[in-house]
């Protein structure tokens, strides 16, 4: 389980780094998506698509809630639920 979780957290931070043009090394599990990284509504869809590609899953976009986008960790949890 730990390995899966680490893999998902890595994929989330990689997707965020690519979309928001940040250094992935500065993004950790507790990094806040809006406050620390400046994620906006326009970028969310692109992040989700990258995660679908990377993790081979399909998001139910209707179930997106604010709590899923608090931190890298909460988005990783959401991705785990969708898997």
């Amino acid at each position, binding site marked *: 389980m730990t390995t899966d979780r680490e893999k998902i957290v890595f994929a989330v931070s990689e997707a965020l780094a690519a979309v928001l043009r940040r250094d992935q090394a500065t993004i950790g599990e507790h990094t806040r998506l809006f*406050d620390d990284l400046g994620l*906006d*509504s*326009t970028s969310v869809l*692109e992040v989700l*698509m990258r995660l679908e590609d990377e993790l081979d899953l399909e998001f139910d*976009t209707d179930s*997106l*809630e604010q709590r899923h*986008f608090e931190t890298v960790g909460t988005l990783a949890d959401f991705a785990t639920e969708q898997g």
Partner: protein
Amino acid sequence: MQDFLRRLKAAVTGSPGTPLVLLGNFEVEERWAGDVPGLPKMGFSTSSALVNRMEEFTLLLGGPDDHVLLKEAPDPAYLDHLAELGIGLPRILCAARHDPQRTVTQDVLDDPALVAELTGLAARGAWLLTHGTSDLEEELARRTGLPLVGPDAATCRAVNSKIYSRRVAADTGLRQAEGWVAETVGEFEAVAAQAKGLLASGRTVVAKDAFGVSGKGILVVRDEQRLDRLAGMVRRRAFKHEEDRVALLLEEWVAKKADLNYQFTIARSGEVRFDFVKEALTEDGVHKGHRIPARLDETQVAELRKAAQVLGERLGADGFHGVVGVDAMVDPDGGIYPVVEINARSNMSTYQLRLQELFLGPGQVALARQYPLRLGRPLPYADLRRLLDGLLFVKGEGPSQGGGEGLIVNNFATVNAAGPAEGAHPVEGRLYGLLIAGDRHRLDDLDRRIAGRLAEESERSTS
């Protein structure tokens, strides 16, 4: 002198002296979108408290004979400063309860005493000038008896759709990027297949929400796999909700040298008047301000004036009157894309007009800007005024007082709109202003110095 507003009043209400009630319901697009699915998105907004306070822009559009509806009274020090500059302000009417998550219209509708007062204004001949009209503003007009300056909500919504823009451009022969519209899932899948042809030839595609706010609700697609992903998301959502409708566009993502925003007004008689063109400053597709005047030659301006006339006649025939803003682009060779999207509402640039009329002297240049702030505690206007000492607008010498330079804040409410509550983590704010200077160099220098001082304040406020 208020040329624009007097002209608008005459064109739409029949008299340049009609008192207006101004309502700044920004991002009315959210309401227009309703339940028709666009691009998959989060069911929440992180900036609604801030966007809802953009209603304060109306304060500097109306004149002393007008009224403005606000969510909360402006900072008294801000009002004092505007009075010092000699700006005759409209009468301010505030809703009894300001809920940060609600639009100004919702706050007003929830205040029976204010609705009654507006009913009295209607009886004395006032009209309602909305930012844009949705069902909520229509309800306010109905409950108060205030006639709307523009057409009904259904017409505004239809005209504001990017699908309408594409169809009108095609019908009238105005240049636009290659693209397709989709109103059902099946249509979207069909146009996605066509768009793959563009991707296969190395070009880039952009998917847009027909009712997206400018700069939001777009997705840049660079490969077929990503387009398949998007189509999959749209299809799955439709299947889950048994909802076949969508409101989406796919277009080629064309190269551009500059973004433009121009405005025209359509009188009830159908007469079209070109108001202005400004250069829109954007960063990653998100609006950051305007440059006045736009860097265009006479031929380019003439082409835009002609497009405004063509569009105005078509919109008038389709039942629209009032203020129309159009986004346009200049391609790398100087060619014009005269209609990227039609906005059936006022625009950010509309709210700068009165300040331009009052303070922009001959030969002067202006920059409308928004500066981001990150605040750990509220920033009162008096503190901001001290912070920006030496950079704020000062009128020129001489009897005309023309030729003044500096920054005039044209929305202060958005600075502290998102909080912050004591002890909470820092929140984002925005300061909007119009910068005026004698030349481009002085203007850009002023802009840099203001941005620098505000960045220092953000640093102090959050440390």
